[in-house]
Structures are given as C-alpha cells and as structure tokens.
C-alpha cells in the first residue's frame, strides 16, 4: 500500500486514544477507544468507516477534527502534522477540515437563526464583505435546495432532514477540502436520507471534496464509499474496496455485520456472502477481551485467538485483514 505521498490527503499512523476513567490497585484505568489504527484517505475519495458502539469510529473522527488530542501516533493532513486540539490549530487548518455531526437537533444552536449560524464560518474564514454576506448565504442555501426565507428560520421549526442540510451548508461555507461526516443520516428517515446522500455525492463531484464517512449502515456504505474500513473495539478489522467488501468479506465480524442487515428482497438476501449469526453482547471498551478482541463472539475461534492479537495482513492487493485465519504461521 505504498503510494505516492501526494496522493493522500489524510494519513493516520498508529493512532491511539485512551481515556482515563479512574484507577484501581494496579494503576490507572483506561478506555482504549482507539488502539493503534492506520488509515489513509486519498484525495477526492469517500472512505467509509463502519462499526458498532465502542468501535472507536467516532473517536477517530473527533481526533481528526481536533476535539481530542491523540494519546500517541500521528495524523498528517496534506503531509503536515495536525495531531493537536482545535484550539491550537491555525485558522487555515480549521477551514480545511469540517465536520457534520449525527444529530442535527443538537449540532445547530436552537436559539439562533440560520442566518446567524451561517454567518459564523463565513465571517471567520472568507473575506466576504458584510454587504455580500446575505447573498453568499442564499447561494449556499440554494445549493442545498432550500429557499432564501430559511435564513430567518430557527432550527426547532424545521425538519430533521432540512436541519442536516443546514449543517452541511455550514460545513461547506468555508470551502473545505475534507469533510468528516459522523453518521449524518442515521437519525433520519430513508427517503430523507436518500435526498441528502445524493446531494452529498453531487457536491463531492462539483467541489472535489474528500469525505470520511462514518456509519453503521452497511448497505448505505456499499453505495457511497470507494473503500470501507471496519472497526471493532478500537482496532481495524478489515479494509477493502466497497465491491470486494461485500463479495468476499474475510473477517468473521464483517460477515456477522453483513448477515445482520435486514434485506429488502430475496435477491438481496441471497447476495449476502456468508451467514454468520450474531451472538453475544458487544463487550464494554473498559474490559476488552484478551488476544483478538472478537474471539468471544467468533464462530471460527482457535486457541491462539484468546492469547495473541493478530497483525494486519494484506491478503489481496488493497484488501487487509486482522485475523488469525489469515495470519501466516511463522513470519509476520
């Protein structure tokens, strides 16, 4: 996976983020939210990051954006180190990386008008003179197919889908290069989701944006991501391009996730590659099982799985897995 450096907009190298939540006799207790993740995103692509609760996907997103400082490891944006909190980042960096949160109800200030919400990024990051601010905002709203009178509305009076459109408009206002989307449509109905996803795809083509798209919805991922990475309890399990991911998933957790997706037709059901029935609870990230963290729920468990944590192996070109089923016995 060694590509020319200038092809990748974001490089995450051995990122770890631990949260300290107290201590006991043996020392401080940590939640290992992200535990050694390597991930690259190419210019203009959509990288899908999939996982359930405790997987660490949101933590990665928040660290990239600057809400958290990495415990160790580094993040390179356009080849520059950016692993610090937002407060310490230069303004130009804050302009380039934007985020859209999951719940539009709490990511927009309910006591402001949309005009006020959009004014902030425009004022900070663009040199738009005051007289032209409104014009610029109406332009943004039109891009999201919202009429100009939305400027005077307040978030509580508009629907969830429209709120999310406003959140996206806010993210677009400063002309970013990378947008992190943390489950942007999980709280929305499927017809509204379709509208928003289509809009996001159109915008990506038009403005040459790169997306780090986080979700738990696999069928959504299938249709919008170029490559998909799946996470479990802070570590990467599998990374592959979207088609291969669904045709030949290698990791048992991936297979379990795909099997759990409610299929909408017989054909869809038959497209699922391998039926792995979901069993067991997702362990709490405070109490991560030893060895391979998935071993307690894995139907293919071997003795080594509870002792040794597997390494990431590139099984095919561009397709890496972290599982003892594929580990080469002696080397690596």
């Amino acid at each position, binding site marked *: 996976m060694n590509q020319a450096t200038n092809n990748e907009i974001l490089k995450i190298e051995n990122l770890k983020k631990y949260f300290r939540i107290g201590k006991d006799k043996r020392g401080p207790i940590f939640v290992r939210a992200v535990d050694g993740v390597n991930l690259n995103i190419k210019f203009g692509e959509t990288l899908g990051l999939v996982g*359930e609760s405790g997987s660490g996907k949101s933590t990665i997103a928040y660290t990239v954006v600057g809400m958290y400082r990495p415990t160790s490891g580094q993040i390179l944006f356009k080849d520059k180190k950016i692993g610090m909190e937002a407060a310490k980042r230069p303004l130009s960096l804050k302009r380039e990386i934007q985020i859209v949160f999951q719940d539009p109800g709490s990511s927009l200030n309910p006591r402001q008008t949309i005009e006020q919400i959009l004014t902030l990024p425009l004022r900070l990051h663009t040199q738009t003179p005051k007289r032209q601010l409104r014009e610029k905002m109406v332009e943004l709203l039109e891009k999201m197919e919202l009429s100009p009178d939305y400027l005077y509305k307040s978030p509580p009076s508009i629907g969830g889908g429209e709120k999310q459109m406003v959140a996206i408009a806010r993210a677009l206002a400063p002309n970013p290069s990378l947008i992190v989307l943390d489950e942007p449509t999980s709280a929305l109905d499927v017809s509204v989701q*379709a*509208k928003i*996803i289509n809009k996001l795809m159109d915008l990506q083509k038009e403005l040459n944006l790169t997306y780090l798209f986080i979700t*738990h*919805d696999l*069928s959504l991922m299938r249709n919008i991501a170029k490559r998909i990475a799946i996470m479990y309890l802070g570590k990467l399990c599998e990374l592959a391009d979207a*088609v291969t991911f669904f045709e030949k998933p290698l990791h048992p957790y991936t297979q379990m996730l795909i099997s759990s997706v409610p299929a909408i037709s017989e054909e869809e059901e038959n497209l699922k590659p391998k039926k792995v029935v979901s069993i067991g609870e997702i362990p709490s990230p405070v109490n991560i099982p030893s060895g391979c963290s998935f071993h307690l729920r894995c139907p293919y468990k071997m003795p080594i799985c509870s002792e040794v944590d597997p390494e990431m192996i590139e099984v095919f070109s561009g397709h890496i897995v972290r599982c003892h089923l594929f580990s080469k016995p002696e080397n690596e």
Partner: protein
Amino acid sequence: METKENVLLNIKDLHVWYRVYGGYLKVLNGVHLMVREGERVGLVGETGCGKTTTMKSILQILPPGDFHIPQGQIFYKGQDVLKMSFGELQRLRSREIAMIFQDPTAALNPVFTIGAQIGDVIKYSIALEEKKVHKEKIKTLSARALKEAYLPDPERMLVNYPLQLSGGMRQRVCIAMSISSKRNLLIADEPGTSLDVTIQDQILRLLKEIVEKKGTSIILITHSLGVAREMTDRIYVMYAGTIVETAPAKTLFKNPLHPYTKGLFASVPKISGGGIAKGIPGRIPDYLNPPSGCRFHPRCEHASQICMEKPPQLFEIEKDHSVACYLAQR
C-alpha cells in the same frame, strides 16, 4: 400462512386531532388497520406519519386535554376502545395488549430493580382475578419471563438495576415484561432501532420466536422495510396519517402499487450497489393545513385533478392487496 378469520383488532376510519396555536393538527386522517388472531402485522412509515399516535390511541394513552378524536372506532374483540370505561381500559392494558417501547432506557425506571418492575406488571395483570398475590409466585413468574427472553442468570437479574445492563439486555427486559403474562396482542414500537445492528438482529429474532411459540398477534412498527419483510405477514404502509397501501408482505415486496411505497423502496440503499435513488421530492405536509384530497399529491409525479379534490379510499386491487390511490385503481 393460514390465519383464522377471528379479527382481534379493527381500527376503522380513525381521525385524531391535536390542539395547537392556530387550530388543530389533523394528525390521523382515516386510519384503517386490522389484526387477526396470531397474525404478524407491520406498520411501516416515516417520522411524523402518525404510527405512534395510532398505537397510543389503541391503548388510550394520549394526553387527554390536547387530543381530540372527532370520528373513528377502534374495535378490540368487538368492543369499541374509545367507548370503554376506565375499568375496561385497565383490563385491556393489563391483560390483553402489551406495548414494547422504542427506547428501552427510557422505558425502565432507573431507581427500581428489574424484579420490582416486572413484578408490578405481573401483579396488575393477575390482581384483577386474584385478590392477593403471593410474592413468591410473582418472583417465579418474573424469573420465568426473563428466562424466556434469554437473559442470563434470571434470578440474579431480578435484583439488578436497569443502568447496570446493556442496551440489548434492557430491551430484552422490556420484552420479558410484555410476555410475563398471557397477552393476545403485542405492539412493538421500532424495537432495536436505538441499538447496534447486530444486537437489533438478536432482538428481532427473539420477538419472532416468542410470537411463533405463543401464537400472539403482533403489530410491529418500523421505518425499515427490510425489518418488515423479515418479521411480518401483512404490512400497512402509512403516510401523513393515512394508510396508503396494505398487502401480505410477499405481495407488497413483489408488487408495490402506491407511488409513496414505490418511492420508499427506491430510496433504500441496496446491498447490490447501484447508487441511491433520488428520494421523494417535497416534505411531509403541515398537519395544520394538510393538502386537500390525497395527502401525498404535492409530492406525487402522477397527481391529477381528482387527486387534489377527493381523498382516495382503500380499494382492493387484488386478493388482500388494497391501495388508496386513483392511479392504481385505473
């Protein structure tokens, strides 16, 4: 699947209005829904279509001051719920129908043990017949209910508090509460939606097993067509307070007729890829001033003059498959 002709629940032309500044929100505009004994019915619709209002009307748990039912009837075993006395309603809620709410964390009281909460449910459902119920009997029944929901170590679970459990386990507790005594109808409001997808899968399988084993009828409310397909025999599709289409599950998925249903199907991302459809243009109507005629007509590309004038009634197109649409009726 052969279902008996015994109709358990029959909602007829239900209208429900909600008082706000400026008038009434005409939330439900003629809902028809029927559940037979042992049948698994799905109610599919998006946010704001009125599914929860409908369910709450069945159990009469809508806040009384603000809600107004101008017309309609809800027949349960032949008796109109809207005309029931308080005692009859209590019997309905404690012995006949159980509701499993969407968010298990909100449905369980954090300051009482699991045992206390299930115990209450059992107590009220038995108390109508037996004057005094022994604590031991309640405890046995509670543990048994938890076991049927596949909760580990039921005896110990009784003294746990909800916050000590994971989301999936809390949902199982809610399910256990609903099956702790014999019920004829379960209403499950978006079960597992707030949980991870692998856990949701387990919950849905549990519900399926329970319903099959006990022969209970179930109304499954969901916004996910995939879930409805896996879990139900017959589906009602709801839009803006009206039932727009109803058919046996297999038929609906093979041959959706209503433009809204078709739009929904198109919007669902498919495992086979192929991108995502454009969704359905427009937005859900303002219930204060709903569209005249068919409530879907502003968003429908096939809308014609009559669609704007008269609301279409459910019309049987083929066996058991009814649509409320002039286009389909031609």
